[in-house]
């Protein structure tokens, strides 16, 4: 196990280094002028040049890269050109909302995925219809799901809010986690909790849908295969109830591929955050990133990309370790 963790850590470090290089190259080749964007249209050429000097954009590319690597290695992500705050501070402001949304979506995806997989594994006509629905559902783009969800649940039925993280007139608890559901519970504030939960439903569902369908299909296939194994037949012959066999023997042994798929889908979920947060006005990293891109705010873009990339890599690392813990055969790979 230690060897596996060591190998994965080295791979994790290499991936992060690659990501840092890609982000730098991208900002170097984009024909933008952040210095002019900052000082404005009326600034003199001297003022633009002075700002470019201050930001270090006048230096040769290799020197800029060396500075960038040095700063990033020490956790200095510079100041945002737009908000003027340290990027690390901005990330700390926006990350909790994204974390809450991603966690809710991940939990929802897991439950939906397992539920759908069990329904598929049950077989019959219903399962065939469900399979068609899953294929169709997986091909619907996230933004369309979001818009449909808003149209139905906000506009037509009027039962769920369309935007934001909580009702605008509520005073938010100053909690330790910055996750509204947890902080409002700790503060015993049912108003904020209910509102936060209501605001979470549509964006979390939109984000969870595609991962849930992918997990469901993978788990169902794996489950069908497991349910044909000898030990399952033995369990049946012993008179165990089918539900008990599925839950105690089938799901556990079929979980490996679904876990891998879950890890991969988490990456897609992080990518989906940018669109979903934009549509639902969710004040998280996706919103911060899209606003930063529109401003060519390279420090902010770099910081957010590195944070999201790191999260993705770390989650996949944890999935690898979890799989190895569940299945000893993997530890030797």
């Amino acid at each position: 196990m230690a060897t596996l963790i060591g190998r994965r850590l080295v791979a994790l470090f290499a991936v992060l280094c690659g990501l840092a290089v890609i982000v730098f190259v991208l900002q170097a080749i984009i024909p933008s002028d952040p210095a002019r964007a900052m000082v404005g249209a009326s600034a003199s050429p001297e003022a633009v040049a002075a700002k470019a000097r201050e930001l270090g954009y006048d230096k040769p590319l290799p020197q800029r890269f060396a500075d960038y690597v040095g700063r990033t290695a020490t956790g200095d992500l510079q100041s945002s050109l737009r908000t003027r705050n340290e990027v690390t501070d901005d990330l700390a402001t926006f990350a909790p909302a994204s974390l809450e949304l991603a966690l809710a979506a991940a939990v929802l995806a897991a439950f939906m995925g397992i539920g759908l997989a069990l329904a598929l594994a049950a077989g019959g006509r219903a399962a065939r219809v469900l399979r068609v629905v899953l294929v169709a559902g997986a091909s619907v783009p996230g933004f369309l799901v979001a818009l449909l969800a808003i149209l139905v649940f906000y506009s037509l039925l009027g039962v769920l809010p369309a935007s934001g993280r909580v009702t605008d007139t509520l005073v938010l608890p100053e909690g330790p986690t910055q996750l509204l559901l947890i902080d409002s519970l700790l503060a015993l504030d049912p108003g904020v909790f209910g509102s936060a939960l209501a605001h979470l439903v549509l964006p979390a569902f939109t984000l969870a849908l595609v991962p849930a369908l992918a997990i469901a299909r993978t788990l169902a296939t794996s489950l069908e295969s497991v349910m044909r194994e000898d030990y399952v037949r033995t369990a049946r012959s012993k008179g165990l109830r089918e539900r008990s066999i599925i839950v105690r023997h089938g799901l556990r042994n079929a979980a490996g591929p679904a876990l891998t798929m879950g890890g991969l889908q988490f990456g897609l979920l992080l990518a989906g955050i940018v669109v979903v947060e934009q549509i639902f006005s969710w004040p998280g990293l996706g919103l911060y990133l899209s606003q930063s891109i529109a401003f060519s705010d390279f420090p902010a873009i770099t910081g957010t990309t590195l944070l999201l990339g790191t999260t993705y890599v770390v989650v996949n690392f944890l999935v690898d370790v979890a799989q190895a813990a569940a299945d000893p055969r993997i530890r030797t790979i």
Partner: protein
Amino acid sequence: MTRHLIAAAVLAAALTIVGCGSTDKKSSKASSDVLRIPYLADMSVPDPDVFYDIEGNSVILNQYEGLLKYAPGSSEIVGSLADSWTVSPDRLTYTFKLHPGVKFHSGAPLTSKSVKAAFQRRLDVGQAPAYMLEPVKSMSTPDDLTFVVKLKSPVNPFEAYMASSWGPKIIGPEAIETNAGKDFGQTYLRTKGDGTGPYKLTAFQRGRQYTLTRNDEYWSTKANFKTVLIKITPDIGTQRLELQNGDLDGIVKSFPASELESLPDSLTVIKKDANLRLLLYVNTSKAPFHDPAVREGLRSTIDVDQLVTQAYAGTATKSVGAYPEAILEGQPELPYAVDAAKAMAAGDKAKTKKITLAYTADESGVQRRVGELLQAKLKEAGFDVTLREVQLPDTYGYVKRLKQAPDLLLQTNTPDAAHPDTWARIVFYSTGGLNFFGFADKGVDKALDDALAAPEDEANKLYLEAGQKVIDSNSIFFLGNVKDVFVLQKDLQGVQSVPAYPWTIDYATLKRGGS
């Protein structure tokens, strides 16, 4: 039994969520005390000496005041914190008489010393809007209510600078002294404020919302709404649905023109004149538009009537002259006339037929629509046009890489103030910030430099002369005057705007019918 308990728990949870959702909606419906307006994006910072964008203008202008301002709906400069002002015959000395009894949000009184401190801070901070005070030679405060500014040389747009939406705003001692820190209060003013305006900034939650609370000690007419919530809602579709459902009171920017006709009766559309102008920039540094004859042909392909009618659906008019009409009188009609034969002949002459037409991203989609209409016309003239959406900061980089830049660029711009210099200097001048393809004409630069200190009549002639040179060069085409379009709840009254303050309404004058 267990199954029933689980089902009951799930039902209860669903009812809780749905209940909270619907309670949210009811509680957020129109209230006489709260005004809800969306922004498409966060503003950069609520600091008037740093802020130099458009999204965020209303937060600045409802919180801070300058010495002068524009009268509602016009380009006439009137007093704001200054009751009156005089200009010396040599146009070097400006004497402002301040309104007595004005207090900052912190409670401190407004005096000439606080005005001087605020002006000095703008220079010390040295960010984008500081250029408006660069001509200042000295400042003095003969008494508590008199503030005198001496300039290094006459600067015609100086009063316009004072009235500009990005002009010097008088920031109070809470920021400039008490919380100045080592950065002239910049850290403090990233989330807080201390102005004299009708609203105070009481919460700045980036990514979520900003809260403006009525200043009950305001020295002039007090605002009607107790609270203004500026909600960050980046998707215009979501904004529209929330407006229709009554969860927003108005949309003041980027409402799609094509959807204005299909609004429900509960909403009203108000169109106001603005100094916004749609421009088509031409890259004259490479083929095919380096050839004046091809540019002449390009001029014959542009059907301005079609653009403003079809793309803007009544929210823009055909441009007259090179400047927004309201800021310079006596401008000539533009010589743009569609001539298919001329256009095709020019297309034949073009060294390359493949061109790129870029347009800056906008939520309303109107610039993309204009781009598509132009694309069709250019195709008729024999060009193969690729449309490309770009971000505004990208366009600033074009002038450094003209050969790699697009051939044409569509963009909507506005001058900093209602004065021809504030338009020509950024769009026509060879080093202007909005002169994206580096149009350069020494005659234009000289005319603008001469106009800066010339007597008004002479200056206006020089501005017209510079404009005519740009028109004749076919390097920039002046397509449309874009209006401010406000889509509001029907019961909202008292809408006031200023052409020089784009996409901005005065929250203080708004009220609900009957409130």
